[in-house]
């Protein structure tokens, strides 16, 4: 595309995830360096470079200043995408897309799981009219998106990830493949949809956003905050928060009605004795050293000490034994037995904190285990059988926390998990997708008189649990 080719236009090219700028005089270099702090000379070839993410601001800057430029970076054209999906968007979906468009086609939309984020993405692709890339965190989700987009737009959709590398005008990729191959696709899409966008700020995954020129960007998530605080970079990578609705606002009409239920259990006499004994050892050690695990730097110090000192290692073992008792105690197993009996007609997801407990539960109750070790063929068969009711109970640790669509799931049993709000909200989200006659229930198993009480209080600190 040539704009005002009167005298020496600036040549803008896309090279390996960056923009190179050629044919600039010193005054313009100075002006650009002031405007773009990331601009610098590449010592390898002497070219002025900018991260590809700055493409939009750069072009807007040239246009605003009337600077002639030759755009050889963009490798896509506008086109029309026809939606074969005749569903009328719900109010919240229309509002979300309108807010996003009003914000210049950049920004983050926060909606609970099961409220039709994929339709929002479809509408964004249609509205933008540019080749689009959808990026998601797992291979399961990638295939899910692939089926949905192929059906919605009635055309071949590309895949990048899980052994596929087929770039088309609508393509779905995993975050890993997106950043690994950004130099190949970074100038081929006008819109990038970041599904489960809270994954994007990871140190390597964010290269997918930085190495692409796409002027339009849409982030979709139910839980934007990250424990490490790095979610703040999303404003730069995607755009500002443009729309947000909570679970409470959408339950009933757009999400299944639900209830959350705390199930209190007690340790057996022997377990309690061991738990208290180990707790005592740990407490004594920390008292001797004069710090607590909750104090600033306390945990790191404890870990450091247990690398070197046998006493600290013994205390560390106490910590882990306590954790194992809480995760696998007999009362929890009995509670699972009772709940499976009570929900013997329902689709049930059993969530644990670790894979060891998943396999223990799977063997004890003869239910399939789904972990990151599960091979694709088995995983596909398990999810299909869960969907059609042949395998109505599924034990998992983290792989089903988010994204994977299990619309028929109506009951979640949380045996154990981290203390994070995000994980707990995502787990609740798995069972909230609207389904005929569904009343979702989340049972959270908590051992009375242990630190699990505190962990449970912490992870329920969200309006969905109020």
């Amino acid at each position, binding site marked *: 595309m040539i704009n005002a080719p009167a005298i020496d236009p600036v040549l803008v090219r896309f090279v*390996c*995830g*960056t923009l190179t700028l050629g044919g600039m005089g010193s005054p313009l270099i100075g002006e650009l360096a002031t405007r773009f702090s990331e601009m610098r000379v590449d010592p*390898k070839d002497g070219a002025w470079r900018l991260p590809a993410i700055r493409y939009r601001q750069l072009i807007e800057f040239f246009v605003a200043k009337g600077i002639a430029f030759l755009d050889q970076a963009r490798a896509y054209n506008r086109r029309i995408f026809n939606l074969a999906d005749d569903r009328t968007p719900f109010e919240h979906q229309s509002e979300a897309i309108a807010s996003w468009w009003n914000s210049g086609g950049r920004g983050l939309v926060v909606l609970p799981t099961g409220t039709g984020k994929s339709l929002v993405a479809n509408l964004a692709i249609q509205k933008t009219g540019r080749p689009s890339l959808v990026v998601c965190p797992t291979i399961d989700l990638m295939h899910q998106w692939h089926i949905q987009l192929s059906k919605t737009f009635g055309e071949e959709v590309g895949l990048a990830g899980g052994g596929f590398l087929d770039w088309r005008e609508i393509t779905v990729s995993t975050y890993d493949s997106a950043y*690994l191959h*950004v*130099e190949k696709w970074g100038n081929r899409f006008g819109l990038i949809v970041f599904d489960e966008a809270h994954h994007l700020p990871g*140190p390597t995954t964010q290269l997918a956003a930085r*190495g692409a020129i796409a002027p339009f960007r849409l982030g979709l998530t139910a839980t934007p905050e990250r424990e*490490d*605080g*790095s979610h703040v970079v999303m404003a730069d990578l995607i755009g500002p928060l443009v729309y947000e609705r909570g679970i409470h606002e959408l339950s009933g009409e757009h999400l299944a009605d639900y209830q959350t239920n705390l199930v209190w259990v007690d340790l057996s006499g022997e377990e309690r004795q061991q738990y208290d004994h180990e707790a005592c050892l740990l407490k004594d050690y920390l008292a001797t050293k004069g710090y607590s695990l909750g104090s600033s730097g306390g945990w790191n110090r404890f*870990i*450091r000490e*247990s*690398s*070197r*000192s*046998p006493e600290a290692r013994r205390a*560390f*073992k106490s*910590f*882990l*034994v306590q954790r*194992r008792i809480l995760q696998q105690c007999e009362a929890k197993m009995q509670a699972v*037995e009772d709940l*499976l*009996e009570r929900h*013997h*007609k329902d689709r049930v997801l059993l969530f644990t904190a*670790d894979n*060891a407990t998943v*396999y223990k539960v*799977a*063997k*004890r*109750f*003869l*239910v*399939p*285990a789904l*972990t990151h*070790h599960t*091979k694709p*063929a*088995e995983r596909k*068969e*398990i999810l299909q*059988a869960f969907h059609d009711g*042949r*395998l*109505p*109970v599924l034990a998992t640790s983290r792989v089903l926390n988010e994204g994977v669509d299990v619309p028929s799931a109506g009951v979640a049993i949380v045996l154990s998990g981290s203390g994070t709000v995000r994980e707990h909200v995502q787990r609740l989200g798995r069972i909230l997708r609207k389904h005929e006659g569904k009343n979702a229930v989340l049972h959270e198993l908590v051992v009375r008189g242990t630190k699990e009480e505190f962990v449970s209080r912490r992870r329920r600190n969200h309006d969905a649990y109020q």
Partner: protein
Amino acid sequence: MLTSDLVRATVYKASLRPSFLAEGDSAWLQSAEELLEMFRRAVGSPIAFIRDEMVEAIEGEDLPVVWKGLARVLEARCHLVPAEKQVTWQARLDLFARAAILRQNSGFDAEKRAELVSMESAQIGANSLEFLEALYADVPGHETISAFEDISARRLLEEYNLALAQGVVLRSEWLEVELQKGSTRQIRNLINAAKFHQLHWDLTADSDQPEKNIRIRFDGPMSLFDSTTKYGIRLACFLPTALAVEEAKISASLIWGKRPARKVIWEYHGSKVPFPNRHRLAPPAHPEIKGLHKLWQSTENDWELDACCQVLPFGESQFWIPDYLLKNRSDGRKVFVEILADWKKDRLTKMIQGLSESPEIPWLLVAKGSSKRAGFDHPGLGWYRSFPSPEKLLLWVESRAIKPLPG
């Protein structure tokens, strides 16, 4: 090498200090010995046994990072074989489907489950306990450790330090090796290793004394956009060769940390800890190098093939370290030869241009590929497909060799 989650280092101002373990430290030696004992005991057991031994959490987030790192080094020394009895995934899903039907009819209690398991066990000739063990025996962690390559605690700490240094360079923008008094043989080894690992580098030296004050700067994975992981692993694999060079000063510019990432420098002087036994680090000579020597000796010709140990200034402030020097026994003609497996067109063009401007250097470059695909050719450039044959090489050498200029 250690992955980034296992790398321990501290940053002070703009300088990075990897947390190497002192081999003489009794506390570290004791920790290493404890771990080694676990691995020795684990031979014949599933690898998960170690994880149980390490208080069930080798893959957990909470185990001390040092222990995880040490265990990672030792895991690489384990030979694993699959568990003897395994249930296929189709068979276990069939079992779960039968269990689901019974559950849906209500009253599927522990007793009924035991009955079902007992029936299934009989079909594979196992008891119930063995059957349940075999149910997920195909999952990683259930492989049996058939052998463990034992080492001393001190050696484990050394290998950990090397793995840590390799983990550090995975975050590098560049890595520089500076040789003040390095022998040309050491430089030759470095260049051979760099070529073998297909690294990109620039060499600078003093024009007057090119063998002294040599700096070789290698591109790091963080300076690239393409295939950074693969390149990073190649650079990490090359690192032991650089560390093995006595009196070398190694420095690297790293992109470190997350919020936000910043540039830091890691510096290592060859004479210091933590690699007192540097000679152990250098990998053996690469088979390709030996291969050509062997092939050459099997061909009857009048040329002597020697590994070249010269640093030749050429063109405008460029330096060349050829692979071989070929000398004709009868007439004294000679030619320097470099074999290029991995090359970039602009770099090769620059090199040819520079060498062509240096008539005192008889040269021959042999590149992998074909002139047709590369789109250019030159009389000083030979092409090979998989391995340069001595016969072809001989033809090129004859056409390129010249008698040394007097003086």
